């Protein structure tokens, strides 16, 4: 279907990038590097899947980075500075993400406010809250809470491979994405969500409670952003409220769109989104690994590759449809 064709595009781009990088740097294909890539891709994959859900219902979520900051800063703040127990703090911050998503969804759905504005305000508010609550201080686990941090630090060695081990974050991504795929492709809810995203009134005429699906999508997005924020802070160990997660919403949305989501709504592939997230991580990695690319133009390189990919994807599509025309 259309989805599969779109995935071919990003996938080729990822493949080309990987081949080029491994040709240019002998370190790319080391097991240590691959493991790092897998871990980073998993973390960004989780938040990108959330972004994809909102895009599928025709909205946008700009608050992802700030939700990451808020949840990511609150967790160590609660645990370390206030001695809250893990069993209270973790469900608390994850629930907070869901509640924020619920607010976004209700504002968009009930009051018909523009998603861009609602989540832009979210971006501003949660960042400010994170800074205010922590008093602009860096928060971190101070090398404690090893048990909780093992959630992202555990490695599952692969029998037969010397150095390589599967990071636990990748297992988490697999679980999240499997659930997302089942939801989107195999349940009626997923189909209703897709219909709502493309043509809300058609879906409503079909007796679908479209409002609920819109709210649900925002909850999934903010919920996964919160979950991702927790994973990020567990991985990194500390966060500055002023910049933790800055711009991550743009990376998440870019990954989702690269992976085949249309901002007009109604289209999206979970696998594509993960490939999109992987592409961004491989690009950043490549820039550090390849000697002759100055580090300070790394964003320029990422941008150039994405746009080149989008252009060639489009060119490719035109050639295909042209050929189809010629030989009916």
């Amino acid at each position: 279907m259309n989805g599969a064709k779109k995935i071919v595009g990003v996938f080729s781009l990822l493949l080309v990038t990987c081949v080029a990088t491994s040709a240019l740097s002998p370190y790319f294909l080391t097991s240590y590097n691959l493991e790092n890539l897998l871990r980073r891709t998993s973390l960004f994959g989780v938040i990108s899947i959330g972004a994809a859900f909102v895009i599928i219902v025709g909205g946008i979520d700009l608050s992802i980075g700030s939700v990451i900051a808020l949840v990511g800063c609150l967790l160590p703040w609660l645990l370390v500075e206030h001695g809250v127990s893990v069993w209270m703090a973790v469900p608390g911050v994850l629930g907070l993400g869901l509640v924020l998503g619920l607010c976004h969804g209700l504002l968009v759905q009930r009051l018909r406010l523009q998603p861009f504005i609602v989540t832009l305000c979210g971006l501003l508010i949660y960042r400010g809250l994170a800074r205010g609550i922590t008093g602009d201080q860096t928060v971190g686990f101070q090398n404690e809470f090893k048990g909780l941090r093992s959630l992202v630090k555990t490695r599952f060695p692969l029998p037969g491979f010397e150095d390589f081990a599967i990071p636990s974050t990748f297992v988490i991504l697999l679980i999240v994405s499997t659930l997302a795929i089942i939801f989107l492709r195999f349940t009626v809810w997923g189909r209703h969500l897709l219909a709502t995203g493309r043509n809300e009134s058609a879906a409503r005429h079909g007796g679908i409670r479209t409002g609920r699906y819109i709210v649900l999508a925002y909850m999934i997005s903010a919920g996964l952003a919160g979950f991702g924020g927790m994973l990020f802070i567990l991985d990194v160990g500390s966060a500055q409220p002023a910049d933790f997660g800055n711009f991550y919403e743009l990376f998440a949305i870019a990954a989702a769109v690269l992976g085949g989501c249309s901002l007009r709504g109604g289209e999206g592939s979970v696998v594509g989104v993960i490939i999109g997230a992987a592409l961004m991580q491989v690009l950043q990695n490549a820039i550090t690994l390849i000697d002759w690319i100055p580090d300070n133009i790394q964003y320029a390189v990422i941008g150039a590759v994405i746009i080149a990919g989008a252009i060639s994807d489009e060119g490719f599509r035109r050639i295909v449809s042209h050929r189809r025309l010629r030989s009916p």
Partner: protein
Amino acid sequence: MILQARNIVKRFPGVLALDGVDLDVSAGEILAVVGENGAGKSTLMKILAGDLRPDEGQLLIDGSPLRLRSPREAMLAGVSLIHQELSLADNLDVGANILLGREPRIGPFLRRDAARAEANVALMSAGLDIDPAASVADLGMGSRQLVEIAKALSTKARVLIMDEPTSSLTAVEADRLFETIERLRDQGTAIIYISHRLGEIERLADRVEVLRDGKHVGSLVGSEITRDKIVSRMVGRDLDRTRGLRGEVDLEFGTNPPMLEVRGLRTSRFPESSIDLIVRRGEIVAMAGLVGAGRTELLRAIFGIDRPVAGLISVEGEDVRVEHPADAAAAGIAFVPEDRKADGLLLEEPIGENMTLPNLSVHARVGVIRHRRRERAVARELIHQMDVRPAEPDLIAGGLSGGNQQKVAVGRWVGCEPRVFLLDEPTRGVDVAAKAEIHVLLDRLARSGVAILAASSEMEELLAVSDRVIVMHEGRIAGDLARHEVSEAAIMRLATGGDREGATSR
């Protein structure tokens, strides 16, 4: 009586759309609701189907009161509506659209096989021969309408409401639909049927209720249901039939210079068939064909919306390079598209601005609009000329009834004084009176020398206002019937792939 509506009142900003209307329908009955554009038919139907909430009045089902807060609740109560404006999600396939909201499932999981089978049955009953896995985005208006019909038929509703289901269909598809409707009636379904094609009402209806300006103004039953009676109730006066409008035109078009000439045009959908056609000065050429025959495709190519694979277009003997609609417009070609909602109007803009949009530069010097007053006067004049109701230039176009929107879509080109006028379903959704007005308008334009090429699915229209009928079949011109050769049978034969000889030898 299954469904009753009592004293329904509905207001929109500035409009009283329904003013205390009563309506009821019984099992095994086909009730036709007629009325001019903007009479309130669609509004009433939306209220019956839970899509709108009435300001006053109440609904009863099986004699007990019913409060509908969403289409979902109406569906649960057994009421199903085919909307006048198409509503399909074009990211899903045909099957998914047909079963949307009613998917066969086990728990939350889809049952794909069952869904496919069910969709197939529904498509069959609507007479649409396509795969349920086909993409809706690839379908034309007519096919989409058939998908909507399949969707409604498969709900197995007790009350089935159809708001202009045939507006994009030709006689063949419509006939098949009528058979289905009659079968459903015989099985005990209550059917409410709305159409501006009064022939269909004559054929189908057991009872007719007439609305005018949001009020119920009369009923017709049984043998009273005749075209002329319906018209006089609807409009409040008798109306001359437009049939034979062009009969008195005594021009020898053969000697007129060609205004529009198309040579070797091949569209991307049908690249193997090359189309040649000529429309002469002052001539009205109609295009007939079944759903998907390629009429829309051809008109779009001439106007530069889709780029044709090959072909030449000339206007008044001069070749024009049409790469963009702006080129076509500059060469004096005008085009009224089939889907006025998506392509024809700026629904959120006032009527007046819609009217003057294609011809704004007339009111400007070096880009700056200097004559706002005159622009408004022109808009007012066009609104008057097209008899748009309400005649309020500042009203948002989206608030007009379907037929009045169509008048705006046609009217915005009239001000440009085109040399060639292309129309795709010029009177889709337009009431009899307005239809006659549009026909008169086309006639007048033709007399002033404009060449008109109009695709239409409505047989009456084809017969009434054309000097010549081009019949298309699967992307090629299957036949070209001069005025004296035109007949319903001849058109049908060519449209379904029969040959010309058979048609004329009758």
